């Protein structure tokens, strides 16, 4: 099903970037876990400081809700703020906005190198001139992309879980694993897009424009979409129309809120990511077997 000599070449050509991406994601986990760990320690507030405020409010007959209404803020956010866990908040934002970045860069660059850049510079001619079937080439490159992403997430998940156990135990290990699984599924789906574009286009410039373009669109939309998210709305800093951006970014299918608040929305979204991956990997592989390759 796969060609070992070709796989070796692909590994040699991409292992450096894999290592950089894997180490950087691990490093980000280390930084964030230390940061979150320190929040947990420093957020012990002294209840005595609150006492005079409470007495003042009681004697005046005013309420905090009244205060909020008088300055034009929906008092419902108080419940949101009261029940909010800083650690969870960090995780909800960190994984789909920060941790996602390196795998995105990885799949954009590697995806392009799998076919388009080799067709563009003509080096694919040597592989095509051997009896190896195009379908085998397509599958070998697909297997590399998928396996390298799985390997990346095995490493980073181990780092993440280890750090969680040692430094910051605010999240359960099963949640950490789900967060990492989601990141893997999203990265695989994003990889399937870059794989497909790499197969469709004969020029690096087009393959990179589409692969990188979608990655950038999804990434920026995710950040803009944060302002329209329930999370920000509940904190009182949301801008509802910006929820539009959550509808156009595939990162929304990596629903960290759902994973962490015990709802089950994320399961269907995981399945959606798998379906997208299956379609794009298939289209890419079939396309390669049918097209003219100008090398």
């Amino acid at each position, binding site marked *: 099903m796969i*060609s*070992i*000599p*070709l796989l*070796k*070449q692909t590994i*040699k*050509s*991409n292992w450096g970037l894999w290592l950089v991406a894997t180490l950087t994601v691990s490093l980000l986990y280390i930084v964030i876990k230390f940061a979150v760990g320190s929040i947990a320690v420093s957020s012990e507030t002294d209840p005595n400081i609150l006492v005079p405020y409470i007495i003042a409010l009681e004697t005046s007959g005013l309420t905090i809700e009244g205060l909020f209404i008088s300055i034009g803020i929906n008092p419902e956010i108080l419940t949101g703020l009261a029940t909010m866990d800083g650690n969870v908040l960090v995780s909800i934002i960190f994984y789909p906005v920060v941790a996602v970045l390196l795998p995105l860069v990885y799949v954009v660059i590697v995806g392009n190198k799998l076919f388009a850049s*080799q067709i563009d*510079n*003509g*080096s694919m*001619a*040597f*592989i*095509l*001139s*051997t*009896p*190896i*079937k195009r379908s085998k080439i397509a599958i070998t490159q697909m297997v590399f992309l998928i396996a390298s992403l799985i390997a990346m997430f095995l490493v980073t998940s181990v780092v993440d879980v280890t750090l969680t156990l040692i430094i910051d135990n605010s999240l359960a290990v099963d949640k950490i694993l789900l967060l990492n699984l989601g990141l893997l599924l999203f990265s695989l789906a994003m990889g399937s897009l870059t794989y497909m574009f790499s197969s469709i286009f004969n020029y690096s410039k087009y393959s990179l424009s589409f692969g990188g373009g979608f990655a950038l669109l999804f990434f920026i939309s995710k950040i803009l979409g944060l302002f329209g998210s329930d999370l920000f709305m509940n904190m009182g800093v949301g801008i509802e129309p910006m929820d539009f951006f959550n509808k156009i970014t595939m990162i929304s299918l990596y629903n960290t809120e759902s994973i962490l608040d015990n709802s089950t929305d994320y399961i269907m979204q995981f399945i959606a990511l798998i379906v997208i991956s299956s379609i794009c990997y298939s289209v890419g592989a079939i396309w390669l077997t049918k097209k*003219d*390759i*100008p*090398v």
Partner: protein
Amino acid sequence: MIKVQNLTKDFGFGRGVFDISFEVEKGEVYGFLGPNGAGKTTTMRMLMGFSQPDSGEATIDGKNCWNEYSEILEDVGYLPGEISLPDALNGLEFIEMMKNLKHADDKRINYLLDLFELDPNQNTKRMSIGDKRKLAIVSAFMADSKILILDEPTSGLDPLMQSKFIELIKSEKKRGKTILLSTHIFQEIDNSCDRLSIIKDGKIVTTIETKEFRNNENKVFQVEFLHDEDFELFLTSKLDIVHSNKKKRKIKIAINDKEINHFVSVVSKYKIKYFSESKYTLEDYFLSYYRAREDTQ
């Protein structure tokens, strides 16, 4: 062995190949001669199964080049016209990869490396064009394939290596290989091909046997006279004068080998500055063909 029938691939803007047909017999060296952009590479890409013809058919050993490429390529060695080696591999790793993909053996590879005096253990990015070409040649010949498709095989090689390459082609021919090679260099074809097709603007303009040129009995001689009188007088002789230049007192005469004695005896009666044979080569044929075609257009 290699059969191309009414093959058409239209890229638009007049580029591509149009309705070309030719056949390469088993054990034959067949040349594809034409200027850059004439369609040589396009044809070879279709033979290799890289691209699909718009119409017509290319077959090797009776198998369709587009549908059955993986079976065909078991027996084909290919040398691309533009050499771009895979990144991240050095020369040795490249050979190793190609060896495994083509099931070649070390003995043959070492023979080829020695022949072209190539040290593959170097970074391909720092290799000279000639060394890259040699590496590609080694890869094309390493599996000892029955059929060789070579796109401008000697470009980038120095003259010594070019002649070594031509020797290799000749010895492979003796070993029964079927070879299709394209070039815009005449010597390559002159020395090694049995037959050749001249291709221009995507069409085959003529196909010729090169031995007709090697054993050509008709020669052209050029004579330059010292005096105008001799020049004028010679013009009245009954020899077959193909060209004369009064200013330079030069005359070109076509002579069959059988009449050479007669020619010498005639020439000896005049005071001449020099006389020389100008060999009618394939190149003359090629260029005359092209110029004639251009004139008619």
